[in-house]
């Protein structure tokens, strides 16, 4: 991928920075630790890469070139536009530390904490280098290759978070302070079960917020390294579990990119239909839960009825309502069933009625408007600095949508619009989702009309299981089947980043392959991790009830947040 901006950057490369060839077409620059900050700042300020998508690390202990051991990866993207750049840097083993970039991008704050937590790489001058996903009594760094996956560590008392709160309060002792400390979550109805915030309240006004996550950290990355590439697909279901099939597609798209496979036309169209149905499902849950949190309970039943309708169609398709596991590398598990079209037509007929009901209840309701208009507002620049993507960024007025910026599966052939807000507050985030559901319906209708025939799996021996008649008929098909199942699909060795526009934003997968059938590393770029990192900024200065309305509008799904 090349652009005038990157070409300018390339022409100015000096000794400390060199471009690394990547077998999958990604743009990767390798930097020495001393030059890291300058390169990143230059990319941000002079070349327009203002969105830091993710920071992660690779433990190269079991790869050929394993000294220095850790390779820290920074994935960047411009906020409007789609090309991606990776900057990679290997800190020395004797002094496993790099300079922080959390002052350049606010999204680096939590991303670097995660790298420290999982790999043990420290970041100098980081404002709060503390564990983020694992608990405070955890010893060791679980994603290192020498950490045994089954070694459990128990926790006896939760973290009281007072170290962070004292820093925010400026070191004032609790007894002298005028304000009240209140702990909200994780067991709280508005916190969706797995988020915690310690708030410093002055009356009803929030002065400081200390969020804590990791209450659903289930070890996705470490589990993904245990089995084959296909074994990872059920784990991806449970990332953003409100729209499971989107995660499947994002992951399979990345592996297909590594293998150089393009799914068949039929598979692509079916994937588009499922992506948009998944988007509708996710937005239904988000809006329903958000409206319940602000007190509008009836909408929950209206919207969940529609979700049941979609569940019925998807259950008939793949057997599961919520965790689909329908997509495979190279295509789909099987073709559509006989009643799929009628089912989808039913959804497209009934969903507008439900959305209309909800609109009539809340769109001009004074109480609802007072609760959400102007609440939790954030400017576009700050949102980009925090790493926002998806509806939360579009609500700030930035037309950032991968389906338009980097079209895949024929999205540029459909007639639809990107929905953009103006103020970046909770109202805009809710309304962007409501309108996106309508746009998704348009895409589904167009895709169903143009559904091509043909097979759903590519005819590629590396990935597609041969038909059972062949497997029981001749030895080559039997061996092929055996190798794919037992040894797994084998993408070429190397590192690849692929992504889709999921319901919450850019869902990316950074996959490292060592050439065998087991993934070496699968890192998820979770959209709501970065959105939630802005939570203190969104809630400080507002009232405690505004915090609840804001949180609902962000659509934080803990499965994706904590992985």
């Amino acid at each position: 991928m090349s652009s005038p901006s990157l070409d300018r950057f390339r022409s100015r490369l000096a000794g400390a920075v060199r471009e690394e060839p990547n077998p999958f077409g990604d743009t990767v620059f390798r930097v020495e630790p001393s030059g890291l900050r300058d390169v990143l700042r230059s990319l941000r300020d002079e070349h327009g890469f203002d969105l830091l998508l993710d920071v992660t690390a690779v433990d190269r202990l079991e790869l050929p070139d394993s000294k220095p051991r850790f390779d820290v990866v920074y994935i960047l993207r411009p906020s409007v536009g789609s090309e991606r750049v990776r900057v990679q840097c290997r800190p020395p083993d004797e002094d496993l530390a790099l300079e922080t970039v959390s002052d350049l991008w606010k999204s680096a704050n939590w991303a670097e904490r995660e790298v420290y937590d999982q790999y043990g790489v420290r970041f100098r001058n980081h404002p709060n280098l503390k564990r983020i996903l694992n608990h405070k009594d955890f010893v060791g760094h679980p994603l290192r290759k020498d950490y045994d996956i089954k070694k459990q560590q128990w926790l006896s008392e939760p973290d009281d978070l007072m170290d962070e709160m004292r820093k925010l309060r400026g070191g004032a002792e609790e007894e002298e302070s005028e304000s009240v400390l209140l702990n909200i979550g994780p067991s709280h109805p508005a916190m969706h079960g797995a988020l915690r915030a310690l708030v410093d309240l002055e009356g009803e006004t929030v002065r400081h917020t200390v969020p804590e996550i990791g209450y659903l950290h289930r070890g996705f990355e470490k589990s993904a390294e245990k089995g084959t590439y296909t074994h990872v697909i059920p784990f991806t279901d449970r990332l953003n579990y409100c729209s499971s099939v989107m995660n499947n597609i994002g992951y399979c798209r990345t592996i297909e990119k590594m293998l150089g496979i393009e799914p068949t036309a039929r598979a692509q169209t079916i994937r588009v239909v499922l992506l948009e149905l998944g988007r509708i499902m996710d937005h239904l849950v988000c809006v329903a839960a958000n409206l319940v949190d602000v007190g509008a309970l009836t909408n929950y039943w209206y919207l969940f009825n529609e979700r049941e309708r979609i569940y019925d169609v998807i259950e008939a398709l793949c057997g599961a309502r919520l965790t689909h596991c329908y997509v495979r590398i190279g295509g789909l598990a099987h073709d559509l069933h006989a009643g799929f079209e009628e089912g989808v037509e039913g959804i497209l007929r009934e969903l507008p009625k439900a959305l209309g009901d909800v609109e009539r209840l809340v769109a001009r309701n004074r109480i609802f408007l007072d609760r959400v208009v102007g609440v939790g507002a954030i400017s576009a620049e700050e949102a980009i600095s925090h790493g926002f993507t998806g509806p939360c960024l579009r609500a700030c007025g930035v037309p950032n949508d991968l389906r338009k910026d980097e079209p895949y599966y024929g999205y540029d052939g459909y007639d639809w619009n990107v929905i953009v807000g103006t103020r970046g507050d909770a109202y805009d985030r809710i309304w962007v989702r409501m309108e996106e559901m309508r746009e998704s319906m348009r895409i589904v209708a167009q895709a169903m009309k143009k559904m091509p025939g043909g097979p759903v799996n590519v005819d590629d021996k590396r990935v597609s299981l041969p038909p059972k008649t062949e497997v029981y008929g001749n030895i080559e098909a039997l061996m092929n089947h055996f190798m794919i199942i037992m040894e797994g699909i084998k993408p070429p060795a190397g590192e690849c980043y692929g992504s889709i526009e999921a319901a919450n934003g850019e869902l990316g997968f950074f996959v490292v392959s060592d050439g065998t059938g087991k993934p070496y590393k699968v890192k998820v770029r979770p959209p709501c991790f970065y959105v939630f990192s802005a939570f203190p900024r969104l809630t400080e200065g507002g009232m405690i009830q505004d915090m609840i309305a804001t949180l609902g509008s962000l659509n934080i799904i803990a499965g994706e947040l904590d992985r």
Partner: protein
Amino acid sequence: MGLREIENLSGSGVLTTRLDAVLRWGRRNSLWPLPYGTACCAIEFMAVVASPFDLSRFGAEVVRFSPRQSDLLIVSGTIVHKQAVILRRIYAQMAEPKWVIAMGACASAGAFYDNYCTLQGIDHVIPVDIYIPGCPPRPEAVLHAVTELQRRIDAGVPPRSQRTEGSA
């Protein structure tokens, strides 16, 4: 317990069996769930409470997120070690009689998250009355679990919280 004293006072078992039956009837028909939902099973639980499956038909409509106001703890979702401390405390803060349903494979036994951070089943920290298998279980399975619990309450089976030794 209070029932024994009443029995001694009246001299016969008739009054207490009547009373017992009334109490059991009351308890089974007014189970107030505490949906301790962390992950995907919580979304399925939300679908159980929504209209097509409607948990409120069985008296369990009033979901209360406070342990002080509920008597049925439905753990729906994976419990990791960080969350286990919280779960233990919430369970301890519930008043007797209390029942626990482990909804889904993760709460029952850790499911396929056999790794460094996941609790391999909530029965490592709290006693469980009913386990619901599934990933996630269908809403009918959850309704089956609640009706089975009601049948047990009717049959006079004490909750697991009262059958274990020590301070559990």
